[in-house]
């Protein structure tokens, strides 16, 4: 079995996917493109959950540490008491740490996405294989 199947209708596309899976075609031999996100397709293809979650987690932890690291280091590098507060003033520094947690987490999530999704894909920047925004099912291996 081989070939490409193109559908405008989402339900027909999902039926075809289900049919292929029922026939015993391996998910890794099926390549699909979709004009918008259809969660059911992932369920039919038994896709594993995205590994993206580890990227924002790592970024957020690093950002938190970097926020406290930067503020404490700069305070100790030239200790000046300001505003009657201790030289190392953790409540004030928590705000910087919080902002950097969010910033690094978001940046790491974006970079992780690019890595996992294989983007940017230079070959496809001007794609010659446009499917006109339809659902496509491509069987990779002939049997």
């Amino acid at each position, binding site marked *: 079995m081989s070939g490409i199947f193109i559908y405008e209708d989402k339900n027909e596309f999902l039926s075809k996917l289900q049919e292929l899976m029922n026939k015993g075609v391996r998910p890794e031999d099926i390549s699909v493109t979709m004009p918008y996100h259809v969660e059911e397709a992932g369920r039919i293809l038994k896709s594993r959950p995205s590994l993206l979650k580890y990227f924002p987690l790592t970024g957020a932890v690093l950002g938190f540490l970097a926020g406290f690291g930067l503020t404490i280091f*700069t305070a100790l590098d030239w200790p000046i008491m300001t505003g009657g507060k201790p030289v190392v003033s953790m409540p004030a520094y928590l705000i910087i740490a919080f902002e950097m947690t969010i910033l690094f987490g978001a940046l790491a999530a974006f970079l992780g996405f690019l890595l996992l999704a294989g983007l940017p894909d230079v070959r496809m920047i001007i*794609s010659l294989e446009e499917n006109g925004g339809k659902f496509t099912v491509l069987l990779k291996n002939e049997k």
Partner: protein
Amino acid sequence: MNELNYNKDLETDILAAMRKPGKAYWFALGFTSSLFLMGLILWAYQIKTGMGAAGKNNPVGWAAYITSFVFWVGIAHSGTLISAVLFLFRAKFRSSFNRSAEAMTIFAIMTAGLFPLIHLGRVWFFYWLMPYPNQRMLWVNFKSPLIWDVFAVTTYFIVSLIFFYVGMIPDFAIVRRNVSGMRKWVYGAFSLGWTGTAVQWRHYAALYMFLAAFATPLVVSVHSVVSWDFAMSIVPGWHTTIFAPYFVAGAIFSGTAMVITLVVPMRKIIRLEKYITPGHFESIAKILLFTSLIVTYSYVVELFSAWYSGNEIELEVFRYRMTGDYCVIYWFMIFCNVLIPLTLFVPALRRNIKYLFAISLLVNAGMWCERFIIIVTSLARDHDPYTWGIYKPTIVDAGIVIGSFGLFFTLFLLFVKLLPVLSMTEKKEAVE
């Protein structure tokens, strides 16, 4: 079949909006960019002449510029609220507003970011706000709310920009498919070669969820930090614990009004009535009403706290707000932010788009006045009567504030013609 036609019409209509600038568009762009140019010229004049060209002076050292900074940061908030919070709550009507709201966020932060620079005077030293190793062996003061502001607003800009861009990647691929020549290359590059494979969509959905989850506490933190610029001081009328939630609610309120101000004419001019319906406006009007009630409650609590404290200086500031030199602005603020939004309890008015547009203009004006009242009246009536004084804007600071509106609307007009104004993929997903 209807779904298929809807999807095709959607692409056609959105792409048509990107193609044909008419005379009205060029006129609007010419008008707003002229205002911006006027603001730039006045800023140059201020730099050449000195800060005396602006009306601010002791005791009111923070005036129209910081008012506008807080106003524009507030405007920026609703973009993320509509995008991120409504995404997390799975509110489907968000897809009619989210792209415009996200664009509004980016442009409003850019506009807001100019005001501290204008306010600095010697703008070429702006980098002193950043922590960097230097010859003087001095670092920035991380205990200062002004430095928290630098970090909060910069983070907000970067995260909002990523959120805005990520949302457009699949739409850039649609535009790439429908244009030719140089534009195909440009939109192709911005699409990063997106093809919509199952793997790409799976990671995309996860990314969008994480960005929304990061952006939501960020929205709350940014305007809280802006409010602490005031609340951490001991100036009467500023030193209060309710400032953070009060400012966040006000920010969402003003931002929602600005979304309505922008989307009503955009919907009409580029014929998006089919995709942005009165029902969608009714949903956003409910947010406007709800946040107006929170803002009203904050006004009442603020007054109650001043009265209950028994502190004469605190009471004097609030008496001055209501009956002093700026009382007309105060009562105009109450009219716009408290009374007029109550009419939105009437369902027919929530669905009346012209009425909503008029209300949104009043709320925008009212919220600028709110920031002005908070900042200027407190400084004008500080602890010591010997230092009391008033602020009168000059043509320079008034012109620069008007110029900032020119910049904001110019950027929005460019967005309307250069980028897809609705999230096509999300609209298709929502119509199922």
